């Protein structure tokens, strides 16, 4: 490439200032004691006014967690978290808001700055009335607002903070919580089970097509705080829901831990579409600061003909360790995973999916697009397996990597396990750089290097962007361009 030196200078001159969401909100907070202990867990449980079974569940998880080891198989390296030195609970001091007017205006301002509409009226009378998205806003450890609750409840849809659901719908929560990601699933999931603070709960009743997109917006604000959200979505027979998740955090010099658990359950003929735009603070260009994003996401296609589709756009976090997976248990069920993972600076991504085919005639599709720039390392890790009884299972996997610059790495680690002759698996992967011919062609037509790169990268990820709801797709596209700023000459 002709402009190598220019590229290097350019990269140097940019300290990832493009991270737009790095501001901090000053607000009085209430926190648990630092570190983790039975007392801290009791404190969290008491704060949430939880029933005894929930506390027992947490304490059991904590006991098991103490015997577990932090996993080290992923292709990431980092200074291990000092689990004694973080706060496991932090919430704005004001009591829970009954209406938006009671929410601390600082928090409202924060979400406004992030472009997340919390006032239904603004949405309803706003410029884009068709964008009707119900939002659950989680600020550090608590949910601060959930919009459109009334309208949703008319359709029978339950959409509320999980802390509320534990009190109001204990039977539903007990039946499904931990049924997809067991308490002892892995180190981070077990930790989450012990200390999770808030997150969203969604239940779509049989035959209901959720009347609007549901969305949760996660914000880590407080220093030295871990965020441990827990999301549980149940789509009952023949229902449909599309759920969106967004995440941001302030710029800080030290690393913060985000260890979420998301569980999806789709019963017969139900469909869940789960989209994530993850934009946690990635740290500065030298790798200082940033979020450790150690997340367990799994969907269970429990019923026949059910479908779960994961779409993710990963641009943030210092380290991402995340494998949204599908257990294809129901006959004819379908799992999908569409991913764009962009890494720049010193970011490390180890992400992918697992498609576990258990039922008959189950199908899955994996489209993964990794883009590495700067000095980042970007790994796709995935498993496709068909068990003996999963006759007629089908998988198609395509994972492509694009490298921008010669200081980064792109890796592919797929496991493809077929225990069944009628299963048909197809896997293809490529790694390449942006073709100089394409660049030249774009430049000849008047595009700058950066514009041309953005254009080509957008083409590279198009298959995945198409899977996102419209507004999210536009946002994601911008985000990818911003994330790659300074990566090309």
């Amino acid at each position, binding site marked *: 490439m002709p402009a190598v030196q220019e590229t290097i200078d350019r990269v140097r001159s940019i300290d990832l200032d493009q991270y737009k969401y790095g501001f901090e909100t000053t607000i009085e907070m209430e926190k648990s004691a630092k570190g983790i202990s039975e007392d801290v867990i009791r404190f969290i449980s008491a704060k949430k006014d939880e029933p005894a079974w929930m506390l027992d569940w947490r304490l059991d998880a904590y006991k098991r967690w103490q015997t577990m*080891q932090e996993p080290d*198989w992923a292709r990431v390296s980092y200074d291990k978290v000092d689990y004694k030195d973080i706060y496991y609970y932090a919430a704005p001091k004001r009591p829970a808001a009954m209406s938006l007017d009671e929410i601390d205006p600082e928090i409202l301002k924060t979400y406004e700055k992030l472009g997340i509409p919390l006032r239904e009226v603004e949405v309803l009378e706003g410029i884009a009335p068709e964008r009707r998205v119900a939002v659950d806003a989680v600020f550090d450890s608590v949910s601060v607002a959930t919009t459109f609750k009334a309208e949703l409840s008319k359709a029978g849809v339950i959409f509320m903070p999980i802390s509320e659901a534990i009190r109001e719908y204990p039977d539903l929560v007990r039946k499904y919580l931990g049924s997809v990601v067991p308490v002892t699933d892995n180190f981070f999931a077990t930790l989450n089970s012990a200390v999770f603070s808030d997150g969203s709960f969604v239940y779509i009743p049989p035959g209901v097509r959720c009347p609007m997109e549901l969305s949760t917006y996660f914000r880590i604000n407080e220093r030295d705080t871990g965020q441990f959200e827990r999301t549980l979505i149940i789509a009952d027979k023949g229902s449909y829901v599309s759920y969106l998740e967004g995440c941001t955090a302030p710029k800080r010099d030290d690393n913060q831990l985000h260890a979420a658990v998301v569980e999806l359950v789709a019963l017969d003929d139900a469909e869940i579409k789960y989209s994530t735009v993850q934009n946690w603070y990635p740290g500065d260009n030298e790798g200082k600061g940033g979020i450790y994003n150690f997340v367990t996401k799994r969907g269970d296609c429990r019923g026949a003909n059910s479908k779960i589709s994961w779409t993710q756009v990963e641009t943030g976090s210092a380290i991402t360790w995340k494998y949204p997976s599908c257990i294809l248990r129901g006959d004819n069920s379908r799992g999908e995973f569409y991913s764009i993972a962009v890494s720049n600076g010193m970011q490390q991504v180890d992400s992918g999916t697992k498609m576990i085919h258990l039922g008959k005639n189950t199908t899955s599709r994996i489209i993964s697009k990794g883009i590495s720039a700067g000095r980042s390392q970007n790994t796709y890790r995935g498993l496709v397996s068909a068990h*003996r009884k999963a006759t007629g299972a089908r998988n198609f996997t395509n994972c492509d*990597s694009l*490298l*921008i*610059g*010669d*200081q*980064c*790495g*792109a*890796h*592919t*680690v*797929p*496991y*493809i*396990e*077929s*225990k*069944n*002759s*009628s*299963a*048909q*698996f*197809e*896997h*293809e*992967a*490529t*790694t*390449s*750089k942006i073709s100089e011919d394409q660049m030249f062609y774009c430049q000849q037509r008047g595009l700058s290097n950066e514009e041309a790169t953005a254009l080509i990268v957008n083409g590279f990820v198009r298959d995945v962007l198409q899977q996102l709801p419209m507004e999210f797709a536009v946002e994601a596209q911008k985000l990818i361009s911003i994330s790659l700023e300074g990566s090309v000459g």
Partner: protein
Amino acid sequence: MADITPLRTAAETGLSKLFEATRMKYPTGVSIAREEAFRYFEAVGLPTRRVEAFKYTDLRSAFRDAAHPAEMPAAEVAARAVADAKGFAGIEAVRLTFVNGHMIADLSDLGRIPAGITVTPLTQALTDGHALLEKLAPVRQASENPIYQLNTAFLADGVLIAVEPGAKVETPLHLRFIATGSETFSTATRALVVLGEGAEALVLESHEGPDGVAYQPNDALDVTVADNATFRHARLNAEGREAVALSTLSVKLGAASAVETVNVVVGGVLSRHQVYLNFAGANGRAVVNGAAMLNGRQLADTTFLADHAATGGVSRELFKTVVDDAATGVFQGKIIVQQAAQQTDGKMMSACLILSDEGQMMNKPELEIFADDVACGHGATCGALDEDLLFYLMQRGLPKAQAESLLVQAFLGAAIESVSHDGAREALIGTIEAWLAARG
């Protein structure tokens, strides 16, 4: 967990005892670090599925006991075994014969080695401190592997083949390894092939032995290919049905050198063939193929690693596996492209046909890439025979079994086409045909 020493199995304890008991009998020399290799091995033991590189092939459970290293067989036993040997038998070649892991000079063509080649028994090379022994262990990653370490620790015999610079040897060198006997035993052999600049040579390797004996062969082939040299290699694993057969091919490629290797597997209850390539010089080219035909409860593992350290390397891998009955195919492949290895072009493909309800295939094709100007890819497919193709063939009048055979043969044949020596290619096709004929 790492600091907990796992309980040692009978096989591991047995290996330690055998090592202590037999080490003084083996040829020694500074070039062969037996002690170091065995201590390395002892520290980790036989790998289980928990070791990532052995995720699908559990050597700890495969080795119930450590078999005693085989002794040099009596002359008439060796002669009888060789008379029955079938692997590459019809091909005009210079043969170097090993029976139960020992070179049998009387049954080898040591007297008619072609010009340009020097053949030295490895025992003699070690005793003499042959200068070329520095070429042993040409790829770092192989030295870190427990199978290769065991081979080093127990190495009993082998051969050093040096090809002079510029020598283009047309007659194939056939290394034939024949196992015989009715009691279990182990063998550890190593062949070291050193090709000088611009040299060309073809090495055929055949491995065969009795069914019904759980013998444990461990063979290694170390190859150094100097600049502009060409190394061709075809290997046939027709070991006995109960053999636990481990093998390692390590090749270091010089600038603009070329390597062509194929491994065909029909034998062994468990086999693992490891291929390590180190692209040390620029513009090296390698074609690495494999074809495995498995039935019963066989497991065949192909583990491949290409480490591109220099620019412009080209590697093409095609591995075909056909699985019948309750057999298991395993393919683990990894292409590493180091930062300096710009313009690397690597393509790796693993395809599997499962013919039975209980057959299984495990694929793990990896890419690890640190250079940006590369074109690398891998593919993996797995499935049953295409029903539409079968129907088409049957519509034209082929009975089902014949239609299946034709398709299986075409499927496997693609991995053998690359063999440029006509006789070797036909012999390997014959192996496929025989396997299909036995299937009925």
